[in-house]
């Protein structure tokens, strides 16, 4: 055989390997760039006022996003009230009670809902809640985010519960404990860490959502004292400030983006650190 052909094949292989490495670097580059720019531009515009003051009117510089930060926390709480019970209990049904066909249907629906664009949730809640009572409200925004959380939490809960060994359940049945107590005290407890992980990841995902808030929360520059009034949220404020022509608002948009991404990444990384190597007995 021609030795040059052999070398040519080796060279080709090395070239493709280098190309693949290059692809990996290009994929990771945006993350590095975004984080670098956020730290560079966000950190310099972040001060105490950002966390403690209300937004200033157009044209005045200074002010902060205190109401948006509190608003985001409020909305996350409302979303959790909606999403966590439904998602966890639905997940329990799939893993403990459901028939094959029913489970398939529910998982199918959850997967489709997970792929539904977030703006669609916004206009659906707009049509269901905001239009009938002609009022933007924190409740509507919380509902939109909560509905988004349901399929996310349901899928992870089921996954975690299925990993609990059947022998645990059988042992408990053998002691004559009612099924519901087995689920609550033994199965849920064993899978607890995994389920909390799922909930936190869903919260991190929903905390950064802006599109569902456009048609539900509306946003404003004041404190929200009543949950049936419009409410401001951090991602929404960032969107408004970034798209405005005022440089001071742009500056604050960077600061807001930095705060938001630190929160989201902290949740993500924290969850990963918390779960790393902690559930070996479930890994069957």
């Amino acid at each position, binding site marked *: 055989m021609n030795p040059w052909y052999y070398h040519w094949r080796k060279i080709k292989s090395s070239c493709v390997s280098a190309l693949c490495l290059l692809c*990996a670097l290009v*994929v990771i580059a945006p993350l590095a760039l975004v984080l670098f720019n956020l730290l560079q531009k966000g950190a310099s515009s972040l001060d105490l006022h950002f966390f403690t003051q209300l937004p200033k009117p157009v044209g005045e510089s200074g002010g902060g996003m205190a109401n948006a930060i509190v608003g985001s926390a409020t909305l996350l709480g409302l979303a959790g009230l909606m999403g966590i019970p439904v998602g966890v209990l639905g997940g329990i049904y799939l893993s403990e009670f459901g028939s094959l066909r029913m489970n398939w249907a529910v998982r199918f629906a959850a997967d489709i809902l997970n*792929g539904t*664009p977030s703006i669609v949730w916004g*206009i659906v809640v707009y049509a269901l809640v905001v239009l009938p009572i002609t009022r933007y409200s924190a409740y509507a925004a919380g509902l939109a985010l909560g509905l988004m959380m349901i399929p996310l939490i349901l899928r992870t809960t089921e996954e975690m519960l299925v990993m609990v060994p059947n022998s645990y359940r059988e042992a408990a049945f053998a002691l004559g404990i*009612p099924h519901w107590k087995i689920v609550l005290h033994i199965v849920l407890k064993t899978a607890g860490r995994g389920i909390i992980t799922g909930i936190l990841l869903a919260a991190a995902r929903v905390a950064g959502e802006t599109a569902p808030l456009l048609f539900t929360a509306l946003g404003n520059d004041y404190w929200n004292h009543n949950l049936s009034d419009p409410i401001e949220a951090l991602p929404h404020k*960032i969107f408004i400030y970034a798209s405005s022509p005022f440089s001071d608002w742009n500056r604050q948009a960077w600061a807001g*983006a930095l705060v938001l991404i630190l929160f989201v990444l902290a949740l993500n990384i924290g969850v990963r650190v918390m779960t790393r190597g902690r559930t070996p007995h479930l890994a069957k």
Partner: protein
Amino acid sequence: MNAAIVSGKTGSPAGLALAPPGKAGDKVFRLLTWLMAMMVLALLALVGWTLCRGSALSLTKFGWSFCVHSDWDPVNGDFGALTFIYGTFVSSLLALFIALPLSLGTAVYLTELAPGWVRQPAISMIEMLAAIPSVVLGVWGIFVMVPWLRDGPYPLLLKYFGFLPLFRSPATGFCILSASVLIAIMILPIITSIAREVFRAVPDAQREAAFALGATRWEVTRLAVLRYSVRGIFGAAMLGLGRALGETMAVTMVIGNSDKISASLLSPGNTLASKIANEYAETLKGIPLSALFELGLMLLLVTVVTNILAHLLIGALGARQRPGT
């Protein structure tokens, strides 16, 4: 201890079999969880029904012409979605065109080539990229990416490919191509992670057989891995496309928001999602509102169809996710 509780409740050991404890509790609990699971099914129906009902006016008034008509004229009450359908598909397909090769290369690197100590950190970083909120990428897009594209690559494109109708119009930077680049960044992680899973599912015997025949690493990858997972790669691409079609905030922030249709990729446009997002806080009524809901309905339909196709290809829809992935 349990025996004491049980006997305390039933009175006699014989009664234990006749009246097992907690039957009522079981029924209530089962019903409760069943209701919650049913809520997911109901929710899917509710989303579809709400959008259909909301767009009824527009559906009856415009019919199919809504899809092939490019005027969006609230003053004269004339609505067509062609501009947004065009914008959605062009920006998403272009994003897929950019993201797919990069993702496949990365997935090949991570499964076939990378040394062990690189693998986990790299995977974590790609997952972090997926966690960046859309609006944050939008901020970065407006202030960093768009100015860079406008001053660097776009003038070059105009200079060397300006004869093509694709690259006409002066480059303001806020255009369909910018939106595509941003969407590509957002769908990289999902395609990479699915492709990685698909490649990992290729039996090692395939690779070993190819190596035994004297294949180089690239030949092993091409013949044993890539050819084996064509179907899965299509699935990953479809899933990425599904995400791309529905991407809202980042796109709204960089696409320029124009309701005019244009062949040039460097001119502003709008997608279904960004058009809806732009109309918020407007007090819409009647036909305009209904037309907006119809845009939402179309968006829902295309994402549902691509997602179902994707999952049929990967074979995962409604399936249990494999643990540890």
